[in-house]
């Protein structure tokens, strides 16, 4: 169960608990394609990406946004979220199972966040938190913010 988070306990500068995904494999991409309905071959067909000179299929940006959303709701109960916004800044290559040593980091997403604003509006007690998701090599995949109304 997600623990309740109270307005009085969160301040500007409070850090969101860091969250790290499993290394993303092509199987995760196929699963996300089926679940979301996004069958752009860019995300599963190597013969398609070769046409554009890309070495690998790449993860759906919305999968990274989904993983980031999961990181948020591991901290703040989902019912409190009022806004969630991201800007995509980098592509994510999945891990190669035959070269795990060199490809695990690029496919592992870590989400970090920090509260940047805290205010009351009418009866709502709101926080805004900046978030950033990056891979194990430090490459940023998305940045964004979410707003939550806390008890």
């Amino acid at each position, binding site marked *: *169960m*997600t623990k309740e988070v109270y307005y009085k306990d969160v301040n500007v500068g409070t850090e969101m608990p860091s969250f790290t*995904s*499993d290394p*993303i494999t092509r199987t*995760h991409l196929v*699963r*996300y394609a*089926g*679940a*979301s*309905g*996004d*069958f752009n071959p860019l995300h599963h067909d190597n013969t398609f990406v070769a046409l*554009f000179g890309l070495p690998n299929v790449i993860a759906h*940006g*919305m*999968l990274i*946004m*989904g*993983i980031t*959303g*999961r990181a*948020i*709701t591991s901290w703040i*109960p*989902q*019912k409190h*979220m*009022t*806004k*969630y*916004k*991201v*800007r*995509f800044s980098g592509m994510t290559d999945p891990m190669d199972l035959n070269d795990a040593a060199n490809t695990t980091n690029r496919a592992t997403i870590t989400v970090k966040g920090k509260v940047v604003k805290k205010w009351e509006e009418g009866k709502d007690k709101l926080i805004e938190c900046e978030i950033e998701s990056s891979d194990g090599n430090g490459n940023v995949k998305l940045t964004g913010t979410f707003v939550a109304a806390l008890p």
Partner: protein
Amino acid sequence: MADKSKLGTEFPTFTYEVEKGKIAEFVMAISQKEGKDQIYVSKDVAKKEGYDDIVISPTFQTCFALWGGGGLMPMITGLGINLGRLLHGEEEYEYLKPIHPGDVITCKTKVVDMYEKEKKNKPGSFMEFTVLETEMKNQRGEVVIKGRSTLVER
């Protein structure tokens, strides 16, 4: 190149009936595991955590257009966007009411902005931006989510 005369275009509305199995399938895909003890899968767990029923995860509504609206391709083609240059720039949601299994969501998407920006590393060459807003209403006519997507042609 996106066709600027399309600014203000409203796409035909479409509806999507939210299914319990799809919510669970989606959350397994983003959580990279099979979790049965979650507000997205079990009504009992959802009730214990203060929800009326199972809820959707924060990005599930991406399924509405992809499964309910015939996919993004008709929109992209209609706007004259070159698929080979297309990137997803930004995605934003405002959550107004919870969405539960059985809800029937009607989505209306409109082109609200089209603009270009010169590339920093390539003067004289432009990136083009198309901003789509989608209003999602449930079967009671309540707006449940407002979405905003920025598509980029590089």
